[in-house]
């Protein structure tokens, strides 16, 4: 008797549902930053010259490099997902690691960038900052809050990607389970691994009533067609979160660094 996936029992998993859930969560993040963008647009409208002036004190080079870092990290993230859909687990993990690396690089740059500002006496409520005009004080207040909140999300993203990476590393490519009714149909039979010529490489004991469940986990080189997108929803959804972090920076960058 040959085992077919047709009578296997799979856990309830709603791939589309989890995707909807993730998108809804991303919407909340957009609105969270949205409140800050609201403050930015108001204060910019009220103090256009001051904002323009204050922006000149930011380092455009670091900003640009950070932009390129995040854009490239989005690429590696997307490639990581595409890779696992093509059963290229090694490539997927490498790209995921690169994404995390880019995230950390971004944070290191931010650390030095903020550090430089602090060294120049520019930080919220500092004496030097308070001597500037209102518009400039607000610019930096928003700069630190918005890039700070964004940086926090980069950090969270990196942690999430790390956890997802570990799970991906340990995850078998495919798990076929038999329990309940599916198992009953196997009673009296044996599992066997056979080569192309039908030669038996391994076989199990006879499956009798003492067996509660049978689970087959494939760890190596499945055929690409058998990779189910549904099984990698966690990676995909984490990818969506990561792209959102990139998306927010795509707007933060010109609003703070390029309005000179």
């Amino acid at each position, binding site marked *: 008797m040959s085992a077919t996936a047709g009578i296997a029992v799979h856990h309830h998993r709603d791939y589309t549902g989890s*995707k*909807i859930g993730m*998108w*809804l969560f991303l*919407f909340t993040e*957009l*609105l969270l930053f*949205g409140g800050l*963008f*609201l403050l930015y*647009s*108001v204060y910019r*409208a*009220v103090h256009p010259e001051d904002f323009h002036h204050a922006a000149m004190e930011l380092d*455009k080079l670091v900003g*640009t490099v950070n*932009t*390129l870092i995040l*854009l*490239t990290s*989005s*690429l590696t*993230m*997307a*490639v990581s*997902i*595409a890779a696992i*859909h093509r059963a290229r687990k090694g490539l997927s993990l490498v790209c995921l690691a690169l994404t995390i690396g880019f995230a950390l690089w971004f944070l290191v740059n931010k650390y030095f960038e903020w550090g430089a500002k602090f060294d120049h006496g520019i930080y919220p409520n500092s004496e030097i900052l308070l001597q500037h005009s209102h518009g400039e004080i607000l610019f930096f207040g928003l700069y630190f809050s918005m890039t700070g909140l964004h940086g926090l999300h980069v950090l969270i993203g990196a942690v999430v990607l790390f956890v997802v990476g570990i799970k991906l590393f340990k995850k078998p490519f495919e798990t076929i389970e038999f329990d309940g009714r599916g198992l009953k149909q196997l009673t009296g039979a044996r599992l066997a691994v056979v080569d192309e010529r039908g030669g038996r490489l391994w076989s199990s004991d006879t499956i009798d009533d003492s067996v509660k469940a049978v689970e087959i986990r494939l760890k190596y080189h499945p055929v690409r067609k058998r990779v189910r*997108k549904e099984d990698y929803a966690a990676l995909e959804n984490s*990818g*969506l979160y990561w*792209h*959102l972090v*990139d*998306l927010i920076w*795509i*707007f933060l*960058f*010109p*609003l703070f*660094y*390029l*309005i*000179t």
Partner: protein
Amino acid sequence: MKKKHAEHENSGYGVYVVTWLALLILTAITVTVSGMNLGKVSVLTALAIATIKGSVVLAFFMHLKYEKPMFTVMFYIVLMTLAVFIGLTFFDILFR
């Protein structure tokens, strides 16, 4: 460059690389433009380019182009909500 997609197929590596290159080019443009002294137009240009970059990330990296229309509709509702929040606030700010 694979552009045709079956229902559950996802983008090939090529699409992602091209997307990334487009983003790099757009970034180069926006940085260059900001160096030129265009006054009011420069803000609008920067935002316009950012919007294009954002749309590209949404459409290709985040797959919105290939998802069911419902996802795009929801996204526009969210954008509109934020726009309305900011817009109605400006009825206050601009007319004080």
